[in-house]
């Protein structure tokens, strides 16, 4: 996944239409984040030659892939006007469940990785679906359901293995986190695949169109015959599934399923989607923008480390960028 491809993909995020206006503000509104990302990369590169080394770029991409995979799902959730705060905890829970299954099957069986992958996906998808049903069937706000889920699944992870990390995997298992395909780390390739599928679904499929409609005006969507309940439930099931996938990849990469894995991911994932131009009230945003947002956060974190900026300051900077991105977007929208 190269820089140029990402740039073009963000240009056609626009399923919601805007009146064609070729002025600087609306141009910046569309391309501002991409421009900022490019400038940021140029800046870090000028400060430290090591930044653009293959090894460092690979590091950035691998780091981004794990939460990037979840942010693809979060894009759909936020497009419906919802949110999912449980992704980090669910990642840890699904990974731990998968790791336990791998050990149960036997790490020398040759199928340990398959057992773990299948378990992580199943657990993630099922938990996501349950959370989605809680939102649609009982009408509990997504924020509350997933806030509860965030605590519950973290606690459940601790229960599963008594708070201890679980390590010791076969090489086949570890390949999913540390191996390469065509010179790129496996997690990066999987992220690229998930992003590509997500992009096609969002932009070219009936499902993607219906998700925009639900987020744009839920009552109108219902009166147009859409099965709103099923659509909303599906996005939570999908993000659960992707959290499970990310959990499996992270445990394979670290060689250990940890009960603290994915802590704080929910905020990083939501930030990616929002920096990418999505509206938290739904109906606006896209996978292209989300990927730029995820890269921006990854580049920023990595670059600041290379410049020896303390991690305390990193948090301040990233927080500021989130607010600034939304503030600009609001300003540009009000100007129309």
């Amino acid at each position, binding site marked *: 996944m190269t820089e140029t491809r990402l740039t073009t993909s963000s240009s056609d995020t626009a399923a919601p239409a805007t009146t064609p206006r070729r002025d600087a503000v609306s141009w910046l509104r569309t391309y501002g984040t991409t421009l900022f990302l490019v400038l940021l990369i140029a800046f870090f590169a000028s400060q430290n030659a090591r930044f653009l080394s293959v090894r460092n770029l690979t590091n950035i991409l691998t780091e981004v892939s794990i939460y990037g995979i979840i942010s693809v799902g979060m894009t759909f959730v936020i497009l419906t006007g919802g949110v999912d705060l449980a992704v980090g905890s669910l990642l840890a829970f699904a990974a731990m469940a998968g790791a336990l299954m791998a050990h149960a099957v036997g790490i020398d069986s040759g199928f340990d990785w398959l057992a773990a992958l299948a378990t992580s996906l199943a657990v993630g998808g099922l938990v996501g679906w349950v959370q989605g049903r809680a939102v649609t069937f009982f009408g509990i706000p997504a924020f509350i359901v997933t806030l509860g889920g965030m605590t519950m699944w973290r606690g459940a992870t601790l229960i599963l293995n008594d708070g201890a990390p679980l390590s010791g995997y076969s090489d086949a298992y570890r390949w999913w986190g540390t191996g390469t395909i065509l010179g790129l780390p496996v997690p990066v390739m999987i992220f690229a695949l998930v992003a590509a599928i997500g992009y096609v679904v969002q932009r070219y499929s*009936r499902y993607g169109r219906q998700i925009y409609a639900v987020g744009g005006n839920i009552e109108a969507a219902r*009166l*147009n*015959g859409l099965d709103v309940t099923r659509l909303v439930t599906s996005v939570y099931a999908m993000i659960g599934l992707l959290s499970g996938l990310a959990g499996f990849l992270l445990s394979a990469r670290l060689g250990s399923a940890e009960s603290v894995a994915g802590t704080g991911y929910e905020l990083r994932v939501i930030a990616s989607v929002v920096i990418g131009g999505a509206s938290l009230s739904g109906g606006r945003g896209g996978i292209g923008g989300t990927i730029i947002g995820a890269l921006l956060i990854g580049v920023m974190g990595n670059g600041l480390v290379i410049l020896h900026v303390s991690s305390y300051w990193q948090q301040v900077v990233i927080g500021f960028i989130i607010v600034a991105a939304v503030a600009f977007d609001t300003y540009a929208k009000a100007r129309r």
Partner: protein
Amino acid sequence: MSEAAPLLEVRDLHKSFPGVRALGGVRLTVGKGEVHALLGENGAGKSTLLKILAGAQQADAGDIRLDGVLLPAGDGPLDRQRAGLITIYQEFNLLPDMSVAENMYLGREPLRRGLIDWSRLHADARAILTDLGMAIDPRCEVRRLSVAQQQMVEIARAMTQNARLIVMDEPTAALSKREVTTLHRLIADLKARGVSVIYVTHRLEEVTACCDRFTVLRDGLFVADGDVADIEVGDLIRMMVGRDVEFARQPRRAPGEIVLSARAITRRRHATDLHAVTLNGLSLDLHAGEILGLAGLVGAGRSEFARILFGADKADEGALHLSGWTGWFRSPGHALDAGVALVPEDRKQQGCFLDHSIRLNLTLPSLARLAKWGVFIDARAERALVERYARALRIKMANAEVAIGTLSGGNQQKVLLARCMALRPRVLIVDEPTRGIDVGAKSEVHQLLADLAADGVAVVVISSELPEVMAISDRIAVFREGVLTGIVDGDAADEAGLMHLMAAETTPGRATA
């Protein structure tokens, strides 16, 4: 007219919205301690006049004097309330989770050392409620009150603001008969205290029961005013309905076979929604190739009936028959699959995806047909569909990617009609198809509906504009307060007769002429 100086004097008030003249030189004079009925059909300009009086909108020209003092044109709602001009809207402005007393003194709570003096707040509220003869506990949460009690709280709140003139917009729309009597007693009491009331209603029998004088508006113009004692209800109806703009009557069609039958549809009022309209045993047949107009006042139950037919709401009793099948539509999706489509009443809230493109808005329910293997949208087929309907309906737009929210009301409505037409429905229900759109677009929409009927679609048109209903309908079903009061032949219908069926307390003997 009045002997003493009037309390409220509105002169030559003008107000226009883009493309529509809402008020064209309206006058209104209300004396002290007078109950004044403000009458007119839907779209006559009553709501605009009320909004300008309340300070929610600004007039383009004209004076408003209260007690001889000119009220500044730029006043906001707070300024008008301070002047003693209080408006009680149909949907109340109460905070349901707060107590009666808190609502009555919201923003004006009595303070002691900078903190709210709760005991005085409750004592003051109780004093006013008792004075007005209302048995309501000031500590009770507003959400636990009935609609009638909530209305009383609104009136009590007006009294805490030293009201000189209280405007009541359709105060009895959601009240039972007994509650109406109580309200009228309360209004008489206000009158005795020298407070004036502007009473907006469609129920003419209430005008004779409780009002002193009246003003009639029609199409944004002043028609007449006078003493209620000197006038017959029939004269009021004639003043309200005489029209300048007439729509061309369309040729009538011969009705085809019955496509959809509604039998004894009943919906009761549930505790969860006290404002809901009840429906009582409504039965109607929809014929292929016919336009059936549904006439009635606001709140008569026409939209509610349509939403039940379409599966958007549930009924308590009754059934639908659709070519051999009996039951209910589970959801709008189910109805659409069965060939029943609806263009909803509220274009912005229920119809449009305002921030999204015309293309998305037009093709959303047709996507199953436009998608390869039901999954991937065929972009070329989609564009072709949009182009075909944009041309056929003459939708004026820069291109199909423009957000629908940027279009005029008429063009938005055409997009929504196109959306339904693209599904080739057997039954098409359109709720207020021409509300808020200009005259030229109106006749285009009428022609479209006529063409659909000519193609054999069973078209149902809900409209609050009688001339429109009369111009395009083959048959007109009249609703009043959730009951079907008559079915009139389109050719035989006249406005006064329909108005009688819509508004009169007793149904006249002749259902059809």
